């Protein structure tokens, strides 16, 4: 979506302490009929965030509606975040809400790739590191978390964790590259591949 790169981000956390958050929860189907990429943020976690279908009554028990977490830009979660449907509306809605980074124990494959393609940084930490982050944010909701992609670190107060990310993903996030533009530079190789296909495989 955006082409600007991401390197260092500092912000407050939203502690969504739950495993297996699927993309149907992140953005339910009734919002998938739109034909644009913008405007999904207000529907993010619709079923959990609102008590009514018209989004007029916030659910006071849901973490997104707690006063102390307003303005958060770093989402904390648990294992298998973004599982289920391939809908790229999930990262679009997280981005539109204002998240720049999602930190969790693990991510579903398609969702992870969709994050990379939308300049939303997915950071994978261990379960015990997540325990420490959740505990810290519980004791101090205003704590500022700094995520440094270049150095591959997450720092907040006394906590300092390193994380792994594939080189290809890191480069794309840092530089905000146009993935299609990069591939089109290999056009000769693609054409050569097509020319080498046996006749019956040619479309």
């Amino acid at each position, binding site marked *: 979506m955006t082409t600007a790169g991401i390197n260092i981000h500092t912000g407050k956390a939203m502690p969504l302490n739950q495993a297996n958050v*699927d993309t149907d929860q992140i953005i339910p*189907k009734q919002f998938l009929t739109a034909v644009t990429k913008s405007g999904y943020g207000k529907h993010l976690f619709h079923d959990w965030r609102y008590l009514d279908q018209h989004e007029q009554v916030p659910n006071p028990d849901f973490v997104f509606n707690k006063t102390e977490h307003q303005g958060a830009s770093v989402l904390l979660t648990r294992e298998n975040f973004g*599982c289920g449907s*391939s809908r790229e509306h999930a990262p679009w809605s997280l981005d539109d809400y204002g998240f720049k980074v999602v930190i969790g124990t*693990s991510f579903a494959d398609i969702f992870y790739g969709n994050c990379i393609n939308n300049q939303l940084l997915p950071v994978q930490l261990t379960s015990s590191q997540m325990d420490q982050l959740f505990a810290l944010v519980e004791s101090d909701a205003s704590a500022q978390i700094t995520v440094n992609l270049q150095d591959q670190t997450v720092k907040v107060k006394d906590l300092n964790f390193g994380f792994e990310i594939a080189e290809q993903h890191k480069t794309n996030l840092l530089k905000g590259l146009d993935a*299609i533009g990069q591939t089109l530079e*290999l056009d000769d190789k693609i054409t050569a591949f097509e020319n080498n296909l*046996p006749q019956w495989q040619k*479309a």
Partner: protein
Amino acid sequence: MATTLYDKIWQAHIIDAKKTSETGEEGLIYIDRHLIHEVTTPQAFAGLDEKGRKVRCPERTFATMDHSISTRSLALDACGPTNKLQLQTLADNCKKHGIELFPVGHQKQGIVHVMGPELGLIQPGMTVVCGDSHTATHGAFGALAFGIGTSQVEHVFATQTLKQSKAKSMQVQVNGSLPIGITAKDIILAIIGKIGHAGATGYVIEYSGEAISALSMEERMTVCNMSIEAGAKAGLIAPDQTTFDYLEGREYAPKGDNWTQAVAYWNSLKSDKDATFDTVIQLNAADITPQVTWGTNPGQVIGVNQPVPSPNDFSDPIDKDSANKALKYMDLAPGQKLSELSVNNVFIGSCTNGRIEDMRAAAAIAKHGKVAPGVTAIVVPGSVSVKAQAEAEQLDKIFIEAGFEWRLPGCSMCLGMNDDILTQGDRCASTSNRNFEGRQGRGSRTHLVSPAMAAAAALAGHFADVRDYQ
């Protein structure tokens, strides 16, 4: 070096590759087939237009309308103006870019993962993508098939390639033969129950063993379809005579000399005997019983005669917490019997179970009685072709006679992007693939089952063991 089926397909499609570690590899792979639908493409086409790019291979791309269409009317606006705009946008984009579209009302229209195979568009050894996670379905043909996001749809449009990291390999062997009354749906639910909702994340699964080889193509599609529900990148079954027999003569399958050459190549598409997998899982077919999900992800599944589990049955704190939340959402108590659990809705259809064999299996149960009072039961064929075949076999009459509604093809209540949606507190026996919270409608409760089990629940008004009908 001995290689797996996945290795062979990967290798045959590499345009540009590099090693990322001792065992890791990433590269640009060629995409043979791109299936598209209305929901995940408008932004991709808009992206092309923004940059003045074209669709590189419209002839490798096929479109259908399935997700947001009515199952009661052929009118594009039957589910409101926003649905209509999305459908019309697909039609306009296909016309502009020269892509063949099977719109509502067309004889080749259907759910993308039902339509593709039945036209012969999916063949062994192909790479197949679609902006839909259930693209895994097509692995049934020994094709490497996986779901992608909209940015990747745009990438495939423009380049006919994708950048991919090579996944790890998992072999799932289902040994022995299936007991009577046990279906492909029960196999895959039992597998997901065993390895977990994220048990195959980062893997491509190859299904094998006697029970898998004995499956028809429709059944293999049901198994591969739900690979994603275990987190897998893709699911594969090596092509064999069953595959070739299914494909021969289909509209887009190779013909004449091309067919002979194709079959010769397809026969080479199997894992070498001494190939090694990163993980191997074994199941005995004889141990599989009719499966019913009790929770809010497909890994939360039990046999129909097992009691609903207690959170205390789970040692992992995350699993325990998930079980607690699921029981609350599903309004279930530990120890509860599923046979005492009333349902008020039944959905038979979807890309998992909307094929002709599924219609036959459900009808074979439906003919034993009437839909119980207070139950709404709908049958939604997966394509126009499935609907026509079912009607030729008079299955529609069996359903209607028993009190089921017989609808037009589409994704329907699997995800409720049309008006086939449930409301707060509804409990549904569903042949679809996801029992997530609110999947079929806000506050509704979904239990995943096979078509026969769904039909049995419709007649009984509660879950029932389909083996009692045999």
